[in-house]
Structures are given as structure tokens and as C-alpha cells.
């Protein structure tokens, strides 16, 4: 029987199945999509860079025989007691409230075992976290939930949070279902209500005020603690320069792949710049001020392995920070919970409804039964292993580039696979000696 050939059904690139599903969801609920994590869209990233390795002009170091140091000191500008870390990988700020107490304990255990620091979040400092973290950075956030001078003094460093990469210019919202009695008490709010975190600080606006705020924090803590200033990847050159002007010891720069506990999807995907695009402008600001390596730069947002660490350091960072990757190391999105992710309408690797408090892995929840699923000792051990692997990977690359310290990595060790990455990282496109915007071309 003759059959007239027909064109196959064609899906629209503009109106993809995913786009259409979001339109239908919005039409049904009347509310924007809120989720955790960072940007999921493909953006230029560290994958678009390669190390050149050694050659006739540069000889490598012998792996496992010749030293390649990884230590980093943070807060050398003003603080009487800078932080000394064994590895250049720190744990980013994540709040008790968004994370379970077991998860916070595991982060502290893993980080401490690997010789690095962990960071509180928008919910104050817990005793579990302090007790299990040899080096703890205390975040100073717009909400000031749980903020008090005693915890300021028992912190090892203070991080003034101006913004974060997932939502530069945005505040936060911890939904009521995660507000247990303990979380509520720490935040001085009733149980079960949504807890808003303001988008800007209540008692200062602008860099001149920030300078005085930092002065106050130093006076309260006897000028002992390093003061970090965390910025989202919005205007990295000027924000870095202004943070330095305000007196920061350390600048923490978070690109758009950096995670959040709960933010509108449209915010995560459409505001801010990729991590790769932020590093060189920030380093440039430090260099222009003569403060590179004097004010340390920590880069976060999408760091996954030792190669990412090495590339961030080569571009001028002093250290990196991980959040999402640390949660995955603890057990977040583990396929062993696939059946339960399916029940929640998701799948392992894609689960991001952290704000709902029903995390099968027991990490982004306050549910007592779910929390029990995470053994903080075993999870801490996994985090330690992961941090150690990242460090070994970074050392492997650094030795191949002939570096006796990971901080000796430099832009000249890199090339870019794409024009976009070349422009953002300001390293030559592979096979050329040129990048877009290079002076003289």
C-alpha cells in the first residue's frame, strides 16, 4: 500500500518540552518555580580550559617524589590570627536549617580531617558545627539570624556576605515546612512560617558604610579574625575593588553555578555571571590595587574536581570553595535513593527541591526520620576522601606544569578550547597566541 512520506513531528527549540512543562506548571500553580542548587544551563566553564603541561622550556616535577605544596594562609592583611589551611579547598557557607544538623556535623568532620575550614550559613552557629570544625568561618548575613558576639568571638574568621552567585541582588526564603522548633528558636521567629532573608544588610549600604561595619566587627573581636567579604558574580572588578577598599582580608567570589538552598529558578538561571567570567576581572582589580596575594581571593561556583581547582588557582585565586560538590560527597542525589526521588517527581542527579525538606538522603531536611539516614561520621569520611582526591588531582596537574606549590600555577599554563572561554579567562585559544580582547590585536 502506498504511503505518502510525512515529515517527522518537529519539536520547537524555543518551546522545548522542558519549557512547555514549566509553562504548564506555572499556569496550574500561579507561583514561580523555587529550587536549590546553582545554574543548570551550560555556560563557559573550567572544562573549556586545558593545561599545557611541561615541555622543553618547562620541566615537570616528579610525581610522588618532589614536593608540591598545597597550604594556604587566609587573612594576612589585618588579622592577628590568619587562617592556616593545608589545602586550598574550603567548604562554602550553608545554613543549619537548610541543612540538617547531621549534615553540618559531617561537613565539619570532613573538612577538619582534610585540614580545611567550613562555614556557617544563614541560621547562626550550632554547637555541633563548632565542635566538629577545627576552622570555622562565621557568616555575617543580612538577616542576622542567630547573630551574637559570643559566636563571633568563637569563630576563626568572619564572612560578611554581600551576595552569592546563585542570586546576586537577591535575598532568601526558608519555607515554613523546614522551620522546626530548634531552627525557629535560633532565628527568633515562630515555628512553621516562611523565614525571609533580606537582600541587603539592615544597618549599612555602600562601600563607605561597609568599611565602618568591618571596623566594628574588628573592634568587637580584637582585630584577631580575618574578615572575608563574599560577593556574587555580578560586577567582579568593582565589587572586588570596593571590598578591598572597605578593608577585607579575603574576597570570596561566587559565580552563577554556585548553589543556593532555595531561590527562584528564573533568578538562578538568568542573573549573574559564570564563575569563569568572574575570576580574571577580580584578579585584575587586586593587581591594579597592588593587593594580589595580600588580600586573598577564594573562588566558588561549580568546582568539581582537582582540575577545576588547579584552573581557578592558575587564573589567580588563592583558594576555592565548594558547596554543591560537598553535599554530593556526603550523599546528596545518590542513585541508591532513586525510588524515592521518583516518588518526589525527580530522579537522582536532578533532585533540587531542597526547600521542601523531604530530601531522601537526609541532608537538606529537618525531618527527624530522614535526618537519621545520614551518618555524620561516615559522611564526613566521604567528604575527607573527596577533598583529598581533589587535592591530589590538583597537585598532579601542578607538578606536570613544573610547580612546587599549587599557587605557582599561572595563566600561561593554560589554553582555551572556545573563543568564549578564551575571552573570559584571557588565555590563548588553543593553537593560537590570541584571545579576544588581547591588547595589540
Amino acid at each position: 500500500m502506498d504511503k505518502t512520506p510525512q515529515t517527522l513531528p518537529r519539536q520547537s527549540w524555543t518551546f522545548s518540552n522542558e519549557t512547555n512543562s514549566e509553562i504548564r506548571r506555572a499556569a496550574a500553580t500561579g507561583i514561580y518555580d523555587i529550587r536549590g542548587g546553582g545554574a543548570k544551563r551550560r555556560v563557559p566553564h573550567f572544562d573549556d580550559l586545558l593545561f599545557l603541561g611541561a615541555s622543553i622550556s618547562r620541566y615537570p616535577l616528579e610525581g610522588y617524589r618532589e614536593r608540591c605544596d598545597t597550604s594556604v594562609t587566609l587573612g594576612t592583611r589585618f588579622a592577628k590570627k590568619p587562617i592556616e589551611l593545608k589545602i586550598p579547598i574550603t567548604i562554602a557557607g550553608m545554613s543549619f536549617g537548610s541543612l540538617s544538623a547531621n549534615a553540618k556535623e559531617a561537613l565539619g568532620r570532613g573538612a577538619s580531617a582534610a585540614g580545611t575550614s567550613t562555614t556557617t550559613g544563614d541560621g547562626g552557629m550550632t554547637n555541633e558545627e563548632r565542635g566538629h570544625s577545627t576552622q570555622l568561618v562565621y557568616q555575617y548575613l543580612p538577616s542576622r539570624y542567630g547573630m551574637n558576639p559570643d559566636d563571633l568571638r568563637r569563630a576563626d574568621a568572619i564572612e560578611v556576605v554581600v551576595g552569592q552567585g546563585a542570586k546576586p541582588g537577591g535575598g532568601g526564603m526558608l519555607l515554613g515546612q523546614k522551620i522546626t522548633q530548634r531552627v525557629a528558636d535560633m532565628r527568633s521567629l515562630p515555628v512553621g512560617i516562611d523565614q525571609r532573608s533580606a537582600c541587603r544588610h539592615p544597618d549599612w549600604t555602600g562601600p563607605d558604610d561597609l568599611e565602618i561595619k568591618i571596623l566594628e566587627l574588628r573592634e568587637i573581636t580584637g582585630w584577631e579574625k580575618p574578615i572575608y567579604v563574599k560577593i556574587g558574580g555580578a560586577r567582579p572588578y568593582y565589587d572586588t575593588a570596593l571590598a578591598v577598599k572597605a578593608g577585607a582580608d579575603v574576597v570570596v567570589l561566587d559565580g552563577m553555578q554556585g548553589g543556593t538552598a532555595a531561590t527562584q529558578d528564573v533568578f538562578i538561571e538568568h542573573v549573574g555571571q559564570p564563575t569563569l567570567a568572574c575570576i580574571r576581572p577580580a584578579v585584575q582589580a587586586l593587581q591594579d590595587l597592588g593587593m594580589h596575594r595580600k588580600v586573598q581571593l577564594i573562588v566558588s561556583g561549580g568546582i568539581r574536581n582537582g582540575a577545576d581547582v588547579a584552573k581557578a588557582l592558575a587564573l589567580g585565586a588563592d583558594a576555592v570553595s565548594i558547596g554543591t560538590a560537598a553535599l554530593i560527597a556526603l550523599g546528596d542525589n545518590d542513585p541508591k535513593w532513586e525510588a524515592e526521588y521518583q516518588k518526589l517527581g525527580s530522579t537522582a542527579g536532578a533532585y533540587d527541591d531542597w526547600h521542601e525538606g523531604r530530601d531522601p538522603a537526609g541532608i537538606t531536611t529537618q525531618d527527624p526520620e530522614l535526618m537519621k539516614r545520614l551518618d555524620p561520621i561516615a559522611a564526613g569520611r566521604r567528604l575527607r576522601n573527596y577533598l583529598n582526591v581533589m587535592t591530589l588531582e590538583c597537585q598532579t596537574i601542578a607538578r606536570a606544569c613544573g610547580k612546587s606549590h599549587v599557587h605557582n600555577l599561572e595563566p600561561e599554563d593554560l589554553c582555551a578550547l572556545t573563543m568564549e572561554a578564551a575571552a573570559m579567562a584571557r588565555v590563548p585559544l588553543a593553537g593560537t597566541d590570541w584571545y579576544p580582547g588581547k591588547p595589540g590585536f
Partner: protein
Amino acid sequence: MPTTLDMATTELREVNTTLQAAAKAQVNEPYVIVNPRGSHAMACGLDGPLNVTVKGSTGYYTAGMNKEASITVEGSAGPGVAENMMSGTVTILGDASQYAGATGHGGLLNIKGNASSRCGISMKGIDIVVHGNIGHMSAFMAQRGNLVVLGDAGDALGDSLYEARLFVRGTVKSLGADCIEKEMRAEHIAILKELLERAGADAKPEEFKRYGSARTLYNFHIDNAASY
């Protein structure tokens, strides 16, 4: 005899170090600071009973994060006075600039003059008594504690308010989102009476109106989108 610290000849660091050590020693001695010259972060981080009098006006964050100490500014105070105070008493004989008592957890902030905008912003348990007027957006996102105003309040009082109680004797230019006038019950009269007495205020509780949260924005709902 009080110990005098002269900021014309003494650095801020030395002043604060001296006061912090004295507070920690729990001896409750009187200190007087002269020539403050609008210095920032003065007498901040005190952690213990101490009586401090500042002879003049101060800059930002005076008495920040105070615990237990009693600090009096015989002048006006810059932005963020007694920010995040935990306990104790801070008295301003003149006016206070923006963000007075911001995020304070406890204690009494007693402002004899006026307070500028955002007084009591995100307060978490502090009591604030303002003998004059307060500016706009005061008690924004205020969580706990009491804000008492003997004069008038500016625009958007108590916007996005949580559980803090607001008492105003004069007029309120406008209320912020989710802030409403509420019934003044006997328990509120009692709270207000005690606060007015502690602050040395010449006013009767019955002269005040009480404002609080309507609690309609406590959990996000799309029908309230215009209020967010």
C-alpha cells in the same frame, strides 16, 4: 571617681580595649569618654556590667552588640547605635540616626530625642523607646521585642512585620505591608507601663495605639503577590 578616656589623645582601639577588659572583669566601674568627636564603633562589644558615659556625639555603631553594660551618650548617635544589642541599656540623650537598635536581641535602647529611618529594623527581642519621632520604614521585618514611640511615626511603619509589638502615641503616616492596628489589651498596657517607667518617659500607656502583624504574609501565597 570615674575613669576618664580622652579620645583627643587616645586611639579608638585603646578605648575599646580598656572598656572591654573592664566589662569582662565584672567590676561595674564608671567610665567617662570625652572628646568622642563622632568616632565610629565606640564602646562596642562590651560583655559585662559597666557604666559608660560619652560626653558628646558619636558616629556609627556605638555600643554595637552590647551585653549587660549601661552606656549613655550625652549627645546624638550616628547610624546603627546599639545594633544587635543582646542586653544592658543604651541611652541617647540627643537624636539617633538610621537603623537604631537594628537586629537587637535584648536590652533597652532609650532614645530621648528622635530616631531616623529604619529604627528597630529586624529587631529580635530588644526594647526600644523613642521619646520623639521615628522615620520611615521603622520596624521593617521586626521579629520580636517592643518599639515604643512617644511622637509620630513615618511612612511604612512595621512593613513585613513578624511578632514585634509597636506602640505609637502620635500619628502614623502610613503602615507597611501586613502591619495593622491591634487591640490594646491589659497585657499590652502592662508591658508598655513597665517600659515607659524604665525609660523615664512622661506618658501614659492609655495614650498609645498598638500595631502588629496581620500575619497574612507568614506563608507565601500567590494571592498576596502584590504585597511582596
